[in-house]
């Protein structure tokens, strides 16, 4: 019987290796798999390349991973925020490499990896500093920049509900990068709010089919976890 549920996030992340490329879903806090990131910090893998829209906020989640010195390089569209101090400090110290990617190009490069596309021409960033050194081409009167897929070893994502085949649904704008990251990584690990029986998810409503998912961990909402841990 297929069962992609793992008992603990520790078990689901045990094999993340130093030097791995790790995609992390979320747009700011919405859809950020905070518990998986905490677990990754405890797990100890380092020298990571991280793909996320941002570079962490305040002291939790991705910011904490960066603050712990585990990230060698980050690909994102919007690192600088009022509360991105962990990133800012390491970046200014030259200890963290940044590949700045326009948000739509970031999304499309992730999507391309999952869909087996070797490269694509996008109009975004043509004529700007972010296209410097890149191959360009005029196609049907519009100018384009050639961009390549971003593949990952792991994707750490957050979903709302999952069944044991790994079918996922999301909640509102917490969906954001998760479905495309799930398809772009060799091993996609999901934290979900709720586990459901096979058949409880309407097949018309499944956003990420289980084929893209390797491991699922059900995490109780913060309050419950705290109570359990106590």
């Amino acid at each position, binding site marked *: 019987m297929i069962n992609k549920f793992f008992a603990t996030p520790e078990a689901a992340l045990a094999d993340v290796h130093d030097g791995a490329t790790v995609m992390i879903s979320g*747009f*700011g*806090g*919405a*859809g950020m798999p905070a518990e998986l990131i905490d677990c990754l910090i405890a797990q100890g893998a380092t020298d990571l390349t991280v793909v996320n*829209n941002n570079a962490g906020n305040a002291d939790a989640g991705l910011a904490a991973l960066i603050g712990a010195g585990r990230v060698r390089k980050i690909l994102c*569209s*919007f*690192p*600088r*925020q009022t509360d991105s101090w962990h*990133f*800012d400090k390491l*970046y*200014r110290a030259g200890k963290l490499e*940044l590949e*700045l*990617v*326009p*948000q*739509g*190009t970031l*999304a*499309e490069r*992730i*999507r391309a990896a999952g869909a087996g596309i070797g490269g694509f021409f*996008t*109009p*975004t*960033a*043509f*004529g*700007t*500093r*972010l296209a410097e050194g890149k191959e360009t081409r005029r196609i049907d009167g519009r100018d384009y920049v050639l961009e390549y897929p971003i593949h990952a070893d792991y994707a750490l994502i957050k979903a709302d509900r999952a069944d044991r085949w790994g079918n996922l649904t*999301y*909640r*509102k*704008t*917490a*969906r*954001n*990068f*998760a*479905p*495309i990251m799930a398809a772009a990584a060799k091993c996609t690990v999901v934290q979900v709010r709720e586990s459901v029986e096979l058949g409880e998810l309407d097949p018309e409503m499944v*956003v990420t089919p289980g084929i893209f998912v390797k491991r699922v961990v059900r995490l109780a909402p913060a309050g419950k976890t705290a109570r359990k841990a106590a």
Partner: protein
Amino acid sequence: MKKFDRKQMAARVAQDIPEGAYVNLGIGLPTLVADYLPKGREIILHSENGVLGIGPRPPQGEEDEDLINAGKEPVTLLTGGAYFHHADSFGMIRGRHLDFCVLGAFQVSAAGDLANWHTGEPDAIPAVGGAMDLAVGAKQVLVMMEHLTKDGKSKLVERCTYPLTGARCVNRVYTDLAVIDIKPDGLHLVEIVAEGLSFDELQRLNGVPLRYRAAA
């Protein structure tokens, strides 16, 4: 002269958005436009993070951390709205499905070049977000900005000195002084909005020659 304040600027932009339009409002000043869309005009707001049909900010205490806009502020969803993932959201933008986007700017050139993501300072930490996608993607790119810098220089310039967000992409600029169209032959004044501002004075403040043909 009495310049438009931010609210008046937002209201002036809102006035030009027609019924049925699909619109993305950039972070910051452009977000204000939402508050001034004429009542009874159905306009559908898009946000980069995967949503069409953004409604007003929820009452305090009813925020949902899973329902935010591109500025990461809590929003609501209108009846008829829909969610989708990031690649689909930017496919919409890049594929020219949005009728309008409204963006802030540091500078706009007479050719329609837009600079709004980077001050050019060598030690600045760059951040671009979805601005470059919106600049090349929306059918009409509207810019909303104060006309002059703090030290009185025009932000409408012959050539941008800040790094570009997009080349030849801006269609219309709304400032606290005027509304100006950018056309292949240069800048065309649509209207002066600052009270007591003459065309000659606007022309003097504006870095670049303005054309103006009074309505017949």
